[in-house]
């Protein structure tokens, strides 16, 4: 059953300075996109995991991310109508709601979050990384837009390692298919030194992001690495990796977080400063966007801070040491795609989550299982049991969806969370062990 929610008014919501800055960056980017027909800029649609923003910028293309558009539609409570529009057009109720939100938005005029029409892409860069649905999604878009579609396949890291065959395959695709087609579409000749320059900038911002996310190890954590984390990853997972804007943003954010940490403060929530950190959680899976604020509130009202999350690693597992490397530009892009969270095997994901619980001294694992996302969700029940077994910390499971409001049942989620926090309390007091 869905619960009718009171929409948050902008004036009600408290944001820290970095969030405001991030919002301005995103707004600026959407203006670049919607102004493209006037400015003559060409647009490349692509995906967040396996996002090759540095390469796209080498061809003066503007990066458009359908997943981010779906998120924006979800946050603005528009995705429900878009999804139903897509279902009326013949799309199954069973499949990914990101796809249906995107298709529905297209069918209803493709109006972006700034209220202006998003341009048709000049090229679809199908970076097939960690999600099978991407492949079908861009076949669906190609049918509508009839524009060149570039396929870049990222082999799955099933055995927990990157083999030379995988890297060579990706580099060959980049050299022989991706780059020549981008040259053709854009009319810009590829300059590897320009790519190196962007990669150097990426690595700089990545250093700061890693530092920021690692502050979750502090007690109290100055950040919420899931709800707040979504703001933090926006620029680097989107259209800003490799830019000076990203360097400035992450430096600014780092300073802000460090200042908060120095004062012993917790994260800033939409209702203000968190005063008490009662529970420290690791969260696996994406959030729900249609009731994002309400969902977050269920955590901070209980004094629960997310100290680490897997969702903030879908656009790169930088905390495991990866940095874009200007000395090995194409290999580095390949290794980036190979390493993203959703391209990692289930055993690797279990290792990561268990490590997070230990390193961040979390009270347990919470899995938000997303109906739309088989890449994340298939196997999560085994992940939960295995992480619980390894860490001895309690785990819990809730079910929602990314952008389909029909699958967010506030009462159910709240009940489960409250039960979970009780379980954590019991575990702390030793009663769990006796049970």
């Amino acid at each position: 059953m869905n619960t009718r929610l009171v929409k948050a008014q902008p004036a009600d919501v408290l944001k820290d300075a970095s969030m405001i800055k991030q919002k301005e960056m995103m707004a600026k980017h959407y203006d670049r996109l919607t102004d493209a027909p006037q400015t003559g800029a060409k647009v490349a649609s692509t995906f967040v995991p396996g996002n090759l923003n540095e390469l796209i910028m080498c061809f003066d293309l503007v990066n458009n991310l359908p997943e981010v558009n779906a998120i924006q539609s979800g946050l603005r409570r528009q995705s429900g109508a878009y999804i139903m529009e897509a279902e009326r057009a013949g799309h199954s109720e069973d499949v990914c709601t990101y796809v249906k939100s995107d298709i529905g938005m297209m069918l209803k005029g493709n109006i972006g979050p700034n209220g202006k029409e998003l341009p048709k892409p000049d090229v679809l860069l199908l970076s097939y990384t960690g999600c099978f649905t991407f492949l079908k999604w861009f076949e669906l878009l190609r049918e509508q837009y009839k524009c060149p579609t570039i396929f870049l396949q990222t082999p799955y890291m099933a055995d927990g390692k990157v083999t030379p065959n995988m890297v060579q395959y990706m580099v060959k695709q980049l050299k022989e298919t991706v780059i020549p087609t981008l040259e053709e579409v854009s009319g810009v000749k590829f300059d590897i030194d320009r790519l190196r320059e962007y990669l150097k900038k990426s690595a700089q911002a990545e250093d700061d992001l890693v530092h920021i996310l690692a502050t979750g190890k502090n007690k109290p954590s100055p950040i919420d690495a899931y709800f707040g984390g979504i703001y933090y990853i926006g620029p680097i997972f989107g259209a800003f990796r490799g830019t000076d804007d990203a360097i400035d943003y992450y430096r600014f954010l780092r300073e802000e977080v460090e200042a908060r940490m120095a004062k012993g403060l917790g994260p800033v929530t939409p209702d203000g400063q968190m005063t008490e950190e009662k529970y420290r959680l690791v969260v696996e899976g994406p959030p729900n966007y249609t009731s994002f604020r309400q969902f977050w509130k269920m955590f901070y009202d209980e004094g629960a801070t997310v100290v680490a999350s897997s969702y903030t690693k879908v656009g790169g597992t930088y905390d495991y040491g990866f940095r874009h490397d200007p000395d090995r530009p194409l290999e580095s892009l390949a290794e980036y795609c190979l390493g993203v969270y959703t391209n990692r095997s289930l055993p690797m994901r279990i290792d990561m989550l268990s490590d997070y619980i230990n390193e961040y001294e979390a009270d347990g694992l919470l899995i938000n299982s997303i109906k739309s996302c088989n890449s994340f969700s298939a196997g999560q029940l085994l992940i939960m049991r295995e992480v619980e077994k390894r860490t001895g910390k309690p785990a819990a499971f809730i079910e929602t969806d990314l952008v389909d409001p029909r699958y967010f049942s506030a009462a159910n989620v709240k009940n489960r969370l409250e039960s979970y926090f009780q379980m954590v309390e019991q575990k702390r007091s030793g009663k769990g062990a006796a049970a």
Partner: protein
Amino acid sequence: MTKQPVSDIVARCEALYDDLSFSAAREWKEAEPGRKVIAYMPVYVPRELIHAAGMMPLGIMGGGDNLEVIHGDAYYQSYICRIPRSTIELGVSGRLDFVDGMLFPSICDVIRNLSGMWKMLFPDTYVKYFDVPQTYVDEIGGTFYTGEMRELLHDLEKIAGREITDDDIRASIEVYNENRRAVNELYALRAREPWKAPGSEAYLVLRAGLLLPVEEHTRLVREYVAAASAEDRPIKDNSRVILTGMFCEQPPLNLIKSLELSGCYIVDDDFVLVSRWLLGDVPTDGDPVHNLSQAFLHRSMSTAAKYEPDQEEKGQFLVRAVRDTGAEGVIFASTSFCDPALLDRPILQNVLKRADIPFIAFKYAENSGQMQPIREQAGTFVDSIKLWSAA
């Protein structure tokens, strides 16, 4: 060769289909010490490589409608398809305890993640996610794919405890070429005279190929084709249809029988695609791994699990199948929650609309029991074809 009646051949195939202990594969393994069985899931693996290692490939298509899933449901949310949960049930219930390895082909995120789950649940079994290229340029996808196959060969050599030579692989390619020829004869007979080789029987004969040594299956297919051709069966006033979307989780036998009872002659389908994935013979001279790679890249089936680089070509395989088999319509039968099939469906339906080919769509699961709605829908479809297509 003693001629067997069709009913005996079909009864044998049905017994194999119903046997969730995989007795035939167990018996094959026990017949000689040191024999190994390597299982695989849909859609495609190069079975020739397993055969060349002296091992038996065993196709696992889930548990079907006869398996009670007790443990498997505890591993999956309600919105995940049934094949992984029934496959886990087969594993945890010990029905696959004789299997030495399990291959999970690249088909979708659910099967992909199941490969990791299998590693966790069965740490003593060889587990491989078998990645295939989605790009079809020789120097790019082909090189990657030969690399993946060589890695698999290397692993199989370790399990077999012996080297696998190129001649071994060439000999196995020939054995599978023969099997493909036999299966193609079966499909040709059914397309030509579907009243002689009903879809439900062809399905059982095909399913047997997952569970028997390939040489035995080739003989069985040929016996069936000969016996069915000779059988005098009445021609019904059915419509000729193609079934599509069933490439992974297989339909229950009753679903196919229900479609036939509602007036469909199934003249083509995508059941058990591994049997027909490679189109035509694979050359047996030269580098055998390269030959398998070339066949995959340039002469293999189209399905939703595969990327189609050419927009103009997208869905044309269905239009061609309709024309080649004289089909009058297409039935999209997709597994519930199957992302590849369900996301592909609207594109394919648009292609059929443009080609003026009628179609219907429904969903099923491998354990679907209630056939009445499907029978009614298919019956109405057949009636509409009869009423309107001839006009």
